[in-house]
């Protein structure tokens, strides 16, 4: 077995991992980028729709174009890249992480001083949403349908319903319609949509596809292949309402019911996970509770914009290089989110010893809110504050904190809404 040493190992060559590897190499670290697929780019390869890169590149790019720009940068930087390589096992050994890599040559034991987890997220599957009935072919996640259509060139359904109103489901409603399939409707059990408003406008409204809120798929019919589904209205407690059932003939059920950070390797490295984000607890540079293990992108929490995924990758990569170069001390202040108004806020900690004076906090609101002021406070002092036109759970918001404004004796930060200001603005 081959044994190799490296400063920084980046796992996953999607938009987060490529940005992290570039930043780590720029920071002077001997870096290797590890990808299980044969090509770089991650899920962007199959996201042929546009809308990526508005923040970073100032133009609307398709997924492959956005990925392509990073792939070129990775090549130009001459980074060490291992494709078609799996991490079969991971463990900690003293201050280092050991990754067992499997590729066509066999097994390599990679000793990394720092690891950046850029493993992305997974779609919630049919087994994770309770639907009664048999398990015929034709039930698939929106991402699987996207792979069939955009990469393989197969149309996996001719007439389907979409369960859940996540962005990929909305994108696939349009994509399947354009390729000639009939989309009978999008069914969302919640009373508000999960996807971005603009995707409801350009993916559903443009094509006359109906969005049914507070309505879900209750049964799937069919033995070998989906033949029909039963939909029903649900009450506030998400229980189907008797008498509202409707049967629809179709050969496909496309699921867009949520994404979960992928953290199998993180768990193997004993990284504590936040139940709110389902990603690791981390500081503003993505360093987890395990020194030398960093996380970025959708592995840390599910983002709506790839631009911010790359941004988090850059921060994690640079911090991993700094860690390898000898930065070890941390002074962590917990960032406590007001859970009555916020679904979550990340990072969960700020490291006051980090040399950068700024930190970016991302958060989602629990419910739809009108004009709202969100602030970060340290003791009695407001250290960051921003007024938002509206807050919606599907839309992640971003707030920059100037760490130099935080008094030294502070032991934690709070993030929440400023209720007085809201009342003033509304009047």
């Amino acid at each position, binding site marked *: 077995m081959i044994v190799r040493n490296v400063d920084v190992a980046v796992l996953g060559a999607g938009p987060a991992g490529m940005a992290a590897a570039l930043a780590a190499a720029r920071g002077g670290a001997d870096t290797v980028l590890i990808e299980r697929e044969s090509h770089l780019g991650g899920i962007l390869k199959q996201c*042929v729709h*546009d809308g990526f890169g508005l923040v970073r590149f100032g133009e609307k790019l398709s997924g492959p174009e956005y990925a*392509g720009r990073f792939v070129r940068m990775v090549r130009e930087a001459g980074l060490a890249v291992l494709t078609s*390589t799996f991490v079969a096992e991971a463990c900690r050994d003293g201050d280092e992480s050991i990754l067992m890599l499997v590729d066509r040559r066999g097994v390599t034991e990679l000793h990394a001083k720092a690891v950046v987890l850029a493993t992305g997220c997974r779609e919630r599957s049919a087994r994770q949403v309770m639907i009664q009935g048999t398990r015929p072919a034709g039930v698939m996640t929106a991402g699987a349908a996207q792979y069939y259509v955009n990469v393989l*060139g197969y149309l996996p359904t001719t007439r389907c319903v979409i369960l859940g109103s996540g962005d990929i489901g909305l994108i696939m409603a349009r994509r399947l319609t*354009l390729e000639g399939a009939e989309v009978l409707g999008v069914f969302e059990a919640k009373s508000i949509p999960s996807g971005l408003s603009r995707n409801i*406008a350009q993916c559903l409204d443009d094509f006359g596809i109906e969005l049914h809120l507070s309505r879900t798929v209750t049964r799937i019919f069919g033995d070998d292949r989906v033949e029909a589904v039963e939909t029903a209205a649900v009450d506030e407690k998400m229980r189907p309402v008797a008498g509202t059932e409707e049967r629809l003939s179709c050969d496909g059920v496309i699921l867009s019911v949520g994404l979960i950070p992928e953290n199998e390797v993180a768990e193997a490295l004993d990284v504590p996970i936040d139940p709110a984000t389902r990603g690791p607890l981390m500081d503003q540079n993505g360093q987890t509770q395990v020194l030398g293990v960093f996380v970025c992108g959708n592995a840390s929490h599910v983002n709506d914009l790839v631009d911010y995924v790359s941004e988090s990758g850059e921060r994690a990569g640079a911090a991993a290089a700094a860690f390898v170069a000898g930065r070890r001390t941390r002074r962590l202040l917990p960032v406590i989110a007001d859970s009555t108004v916020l679904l979550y806020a990340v990072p969960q900690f700020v490291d006051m010893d980090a040399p950068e004076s700024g930190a970016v906090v991302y958060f989602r609101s629990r419910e739809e809110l009108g004009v709202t002021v969100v602030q970060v406070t340290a003791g009695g002092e407001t250290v960051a504050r921003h007024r938002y036109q509206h807050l919606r759970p599907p839309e992640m918001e971003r707030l920059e904190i100037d760490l130099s404004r935080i008094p030294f004796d502070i032991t934690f930060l709070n993030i929440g809404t400023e209720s007085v200001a809201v009342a003033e603005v509304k009047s």
Partner: protein
Amino acid sequence: MRKLTCIVCPSGCSINVNQDVDPWSIVGNLCPRGIDFARKELTNPTRTVCSTARTSFATVRRLPVRTRGEVPLASVRSVMSEISRLIVDREARTGDTLIEDVVGTGVAVVATADLADLMEEEDCDGRPICSGD
């Protein structure tokens, strides 16, 4: 009063347009692009069409493509049928024109990935290998 959702950026502003006054009253947009969007949406709505094209290469079934600019919303279906007739038989690169003027819109259809990159598959030593189908 028309209510629109701006699709220019992910903010997705909800814009109200009153067409009964001259000039139209347009409110709800966070930036000036929302005003241009609202005007265009109510006179000549346009969209970028993104899709994939067939290729003549066995290992790359589809090449991602899109219209270089926006085309009238009403022509999206006919743009799609012209794209579906396209077969890419050369190693097109990102930005290469595949259809000069799609269904008379004056807008080109371009590749959004490098076909050669999609094809190439290397082993761990960087030697190209034959990818199975």
